[in-house]
């Protein structure tokens, strides 16, 4: 199945697997026999042509391509014209985490399904990230460790990675400025492990 090989960053990536799980509204163009349990509400043994179902993105990608056309997929609401308008108005205030924690990744996976809207979707993704990036960088470089949770509540997973990278750079820089960069510390895994052990003892 070379046609839908877009495993980014690799085949084993957890976030990519999670991103391709989000639901996409689909309409069956052909009848699919003996798989009626996909649509439990219908009670049929088969999925008849014309049924509308929400399928996970990975399934929609496999069934809707240039070579075969078993279902026709639509964009999920969050990528449609209405949300595109909202993003155009001001992307930086939108709660992307609520719209789907893997907004950008899902968007990329939807590109081959988008048909005539593909160009609009692609520019939506890049424009959104471009508009939000400045704010993310700014808050990553200027917020202390305590109030991080409030800062990242509205960011999607990709943006969180960027934010944490920025925070790490800030902390490393501060350590270096105060000439403490060479001090050895407990490795993070051990630290986390000990914390859990102690909290288990306490409780």
């Amino acid at each position, binding site marked *: 199945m070379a046609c839908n090989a877009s495993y980014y960053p690799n085949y084993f990536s957890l976030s990519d697997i999670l991103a391709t799980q989000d639901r996409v509204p689909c309409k069956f163009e052909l009848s699919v026999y003996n798989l009626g349990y*996909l649509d439990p509400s219908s009670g049929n043994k088969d999925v008849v042509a014309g049924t509308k179902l929400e399928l996970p993105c990975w399934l929609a990608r496999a069934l809707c391509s240039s070579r075969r056309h*078993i279902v026709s997929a639509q964009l999920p609401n969050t990528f449609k014209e209405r949300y595109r308008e909202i993003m155009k108005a001001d992307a930086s205030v939108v709660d992307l985490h609520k719209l789907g924690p893997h907004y950008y990744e899902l968007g990329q996976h939807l590109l081959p399904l988008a048909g005539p809207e593909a160009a609009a979707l692609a520019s939506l993704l890049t424009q959104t990230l471009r508009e939000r990036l400045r704010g993310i960088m700014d808050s990553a470089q200027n917020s202390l460790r305590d109030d991080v949770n409030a800062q990242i509540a509205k960011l999607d997973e990709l943006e969180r990675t960027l934010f944490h990278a920025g925070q790490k750079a800030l902390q490393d820089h501060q350590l270096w400025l105060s000439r403490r960069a060479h001090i050895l510390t407990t*490795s993070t895994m051990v630290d986390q492990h000990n914390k859990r052990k102690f909290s288990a003892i306490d409780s």
Partner: protein
Amino acid sequence: MLADKALELIRELDRTKDGQMPAFNEDTIRIVLEEMNTLFEQNQRDVNATVAGDVRYFSGVHLRHAALERNRRCLLAYLYNRLERVRDMRWEFGSILPADIRANMCEPEIIWFNKYNKNLASYMRSLGEGTGLDLTQDIKPPKNLYIEVRCLQDYGEFEIEEGDTVVLQKNTTHYLPMAQCQHLIRQGILEHVE
């Protein structure tokens, strides 16, 4: 929905980050494998029907095949990501893992860990023209030969290379050769003070 159980495995790994090792979820894996078997058998039947000339089953074959591939991807990703964690733990915890982490690993993972241990050790021995080089030392460039450390927990006697022994008791501070106490710092027994 198809492949939901397999996704559970992925979610489980995604929830537990930073050095946690969730227990090897053999039950769910078995359920996923059963689901794959069923899908495969149904596909075989429908493929035979298709070959016999009944083409209407073909779309179902595609659908199940996609689900099979999805399940395979989830299972492989689960195993692979766990292995990556096991590998990282060799560098973080050292060659001996805490008992509770070991208990959460399955038998092949423990064997793999031991092999990795052995490979790494023999590689490190082969470095530096026969003298060997401990790659797990000096994660950060050292500045002094001796450093001041404070004990965070009772450890007992600790013999340093010159032959002296020091008793590492909680809240005592010592002046020790860096090369030898680094591992204890990494493992959270000592704290580097400046």
